[in-house]
C-alpha cells in the first residue's frame, strides 16, 4: 500500500500545476469525469507495460512542470512558408502571431469556441484506457478546430506551431480537423522547443476525413535549446474513397513519443505513412503506429527510416490490422534503420494481424550499419570520409523527406538535417 501511495502522490504532484488552468474539457463534463476516472484508476505506464517497454513515462511524471504564459518574444518557425498560421506559445494561442484562414467554405477557429467540434472531441481518441491520452483530454488548454466544407480545397496549408520558451513549461493542446466530402486540406504541425531546462508538450489531433476527401499532415519535431519531451498523438478516421498521408520528421528531441492511429473505415481508401528520426546523444524517439483496415479494397503504405547514433535510442512499433471483412487489402510496411555506434539502440517491431484471407500484405524490418563498401567507393573518388557518410545518410533519409509535398517544408527539413549532420 505504501508503494501505491508514493506513486499516487507522484501522480498528484505531477498534475497539480495543470489544475488551475481552464481546460477544453470544461465544455464536456462527461468527458471530464471519464478522463478524471482514467487518471485515477489507471497506473502510470511503466516499462512493464508492453506499449511502453522502451520508453519511460516516469521521465515526465517525475518532473516538476509548470503552466506559464505565452511570451512576447520571437518564435522559431519556417519563415518562407506560404501558409495560414496558428501559433501556440507555451500551449497558449497567440492571436498576434497567427493568421487563420478566411476562405469561403473553411472554418478555422479555436477549439474552445467551436461548439460542433467540441461535441466531436474524444470520438476517436483513447482517453478511457490510455493514461497519457486521459491526461491530454483532462488538461488540454486550447487547440484549433479546422473544418473544410464539401468540395472545398483549403487554399494554403494550415501551419500550426507549438513553440515553448519557458523553463520547465508544459503545453497541452488538442486539435480537431474535419475534411468534408470531396474536400482537401494540408496541415503542418511544427513542435519547436527553445527554452532553458526542459519542456513538455502533449498534443492530440483527431481528424475526420470524409468520403472522397484528402488530408495531408506534416509533423516536424525539433528542439533548439534545452530538452523537449513530446507526446504527440494523431487519431484519424477515413471514410470511403478518401486519402490520408502523414509524414513524421523528428529532427531532434530528448524524449519523443509519437502515436499514430488510423482507422480505415471506408472502402477504396489510400493511406501513406512516412517517418524518419535521427536521435543522437541521449535522445529517445519512439514511433508507435497503428493502421486498422476494417473494410475491403484499401491500400496502406508505411515507410519509416531511422539513423541512431551515440547513446540514443529509437523505437518503431508498427501495427497493421486487417480485419475479417477487409478483403483485397494491400498493406505494406517497411522499417529500415542504420545504427552508427555500439551504444545506440534500435528496437523495431512490425506487427501484422491479418484475419482476412484474400489480401496482399508485407512488412520488413532491417537494422544495420553503414555500407562501408559504399564509403570506400566514394572516398576512392576523392570524397572525404565525413562528406561520404553525409551523402549516404542523406540518401537513406531522402525517400522520406522527399515525400513532403510542400517545397518550403521539405527544404527546411533537408537544411535542418544537413546542419545536424555537420554538427
Amino acid at each position, binding site marked *: 500500500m505504501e508503494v501505491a501511495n508514493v506513486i499516487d502522490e507522484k501522480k498528484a504532484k505531477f498534475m497539480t500545476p495543470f489544475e488551475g488552468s481552464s481546460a477544453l474539457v470544461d465544455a464536456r463534463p462527461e468527458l471530464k469525469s471519464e478522463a478524471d476516472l482514467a487518471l485515477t484508476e489507471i497506473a502510470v505506464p511503466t516499462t512493464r507495460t508492453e506499449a511502453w517497454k522502451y520508453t519511460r513515462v516516469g521521465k515526465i511524471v517525475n518532473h516538476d512542470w509548470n503552466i506559464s504564459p505565452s511570451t512576447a518574444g520571437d518564435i522559431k518557425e519556417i519563415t518562407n512558408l506560404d501558409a495560414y498560421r496558428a501559433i501556440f506559445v507555451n500551449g497558449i494561442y497567440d492571436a498576434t502571431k497567427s493568421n487563420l484562414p478566411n476562405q469561403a467554405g473553411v472554418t478555422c477557429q479555436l477549439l474552445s469556441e467551436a461548439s460542433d467540434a467540441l461535441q466531436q472531441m474524444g470520438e476517436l481518441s483513447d482517453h478511457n484506457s490510455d493514461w497519457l491520452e486521459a491526461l491530454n483530454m483532462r488538461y488540454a488548454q486550447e487547440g484549433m478546430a479546422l473544418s473544410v466544407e464539401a468540395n472545398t480545397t483549403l487554399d494554403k496549408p494550415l501551419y500550426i506551431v507549438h513553440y515553448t520558451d519557458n523553463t520547465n513549461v508544459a503545453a497541452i493542446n488538442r486539435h480537431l480537423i474535419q475534411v468534408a466530402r470531396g474536400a482537401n486540406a494540408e496541415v503542418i504541425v511544427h513542435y519547436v522547443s527553445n527554452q532553458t531546462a526542459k519542456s513538455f508538450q502533449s498534443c492530440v489531433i483527431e481528424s475526420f476525413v470524409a468520403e472522397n476527401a484528402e488530408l495531408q499532415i506534416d509533423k516536424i519535431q525539433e528542439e533548439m535549446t534545452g530538452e523537449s519531451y513530446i507526446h504527440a498523438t494523431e487519431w484519424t478516421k477515413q471514410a470511403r474513397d478518401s486519402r490520408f498521408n502523414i509524414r513524421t520528421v523528428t529532427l531532434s528531441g530528448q524524449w519523443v513519443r509519437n502515436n499514430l492511429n488510423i482507422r480505415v473505415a471506408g472502402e477504396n481508401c489510400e493511406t501513406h505513412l512516412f517517418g524518419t528520426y535521427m536521435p543522437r546523444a541521449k535522445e529517445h524517439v519512439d514511433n508507435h503506429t497503428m493502421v486498422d483496415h476494417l473494410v475491403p479494397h484499401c491500400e496502406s503504405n508505411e515507410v519509416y527510416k531511422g539513423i541512431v547514433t551515440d547513446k540514443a535510442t529509437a523505437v518503431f512499433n508498427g501495427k497493421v490490422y486487417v480485419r475479417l471483412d477487409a478483403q483485397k487489402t494491400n498493406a505494406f510496411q517497411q522499417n529500415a534503420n542504420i545504427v552508427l555506434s555500439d551504444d545506440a539502440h534500435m528496437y523495431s517491431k512490425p506487427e501484422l494481424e491479418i484475419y482476412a484471407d484474400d489480401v496482399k500484405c508485407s512488412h520488413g524490418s532491417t537494422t544495420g550499419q553503414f*555500407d562501408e*563498401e*559504399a564509403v*570506400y*567507393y*566514394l*572516398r*576512392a*573518388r*576523392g*570524397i*572525404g*570520409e565525413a*562528406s*561520404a557518410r553525409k*551523402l*549516404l545518410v*542523406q*540518401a*537513406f533519409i*531522402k*525517400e522520406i523527406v522527399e515525400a513532403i509535398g510542400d517545397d518550403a517544408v521539405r527544404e527546411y527539413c533537408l537544411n535542418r538535417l544537413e546542419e545536424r549532420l555537420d554538427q
Partner: protein
Amino acid sequence: MLEIKNLHASVEGNEILKGLNLEVKPGEVHAIMGPNGSGKSTLASVLAGNEDYEVTEGSAHLDGEDLLDMGTEDRAREGLFLAFQYPVEIPGVSNINFLRTALNEIREHKGQEQLSAKDFLRLVKEKSALVELDGKLANRSVNEGFSGGEKKRNEIFQMAMLEPKLAILDETDSGLDIDALKVVAQGVNAMRSPERSFLVITHYQRLLDYIVPDVVHVLYKGRIVKSGPKELAMELEEKGYDWIKEEVTA
C-alpha cells in the same frame, strides 16, 4: 609517375604481394596479367588504399608522393583513379550529385575554384558521350539497377570526369560483351596522353587488342615474374600460364 618498390601486402594475415617492383612512366600503358589468385586485384586495392589490406614492407610513390602515407580520398585527389572490378551500388545518391561532390573536393584540394553548375553539366554531357552513357543514367542513383556493361562504362565515365594522372583498371573487361568492351576501350584511348598513365589489370588478352599496352607484366605469386612488349600478351593467350609457372619454379 608510379614507382613501386619491394611491395609486400597481406590480407587477414595471408601475404599476397611478396616484393613487387614496378615503374610506370608518364604516358605509358602497362598491362598486368596473371593467373587467378596471383595478386592482381590486391595490387589495385593496395594502391587505392583499401584498408582491408595491410602493407608490411616496401613503398609506392605517385609523382614522388608517398601513396602509402595517404588516405584513400587523398590518393584520389592526388590523381589516382581505380576503376573497380565490382562497382558498388549506392541507392539514393545520384551519379550527378556524387560526381559534383567528388570533382569539387578534388578541385578544392588542388586550390582550384568550384565548377559552376553550367560548366559541370557541360562536362557531364561531353564525357558521358565518350562512353556512350545514356544521359538518364547520369541522373540515376550510382550504379543502382545498371547492367554489368553500364557499371563498367560508368567507371570510365567517372575517370573521364575526374581526369586522373594514373588510372588503374581492375578487370574492367571481365564479363563485357565485345561491343561494351569496344566502348570502354574507346573511352580509355580517348584519354591517353603524354601526362597520363594507365595500369590495366586483366585476365584476358582480348582487351589489349583495343587498349594497346606499352609493357605487359606477368604477376605470379605476388611478384612480377616476367615483363615484355605487347606480344607477351599474345603468347600468354596461346600458351596459358603454365610455362611461366615452370620458368619461375625452375
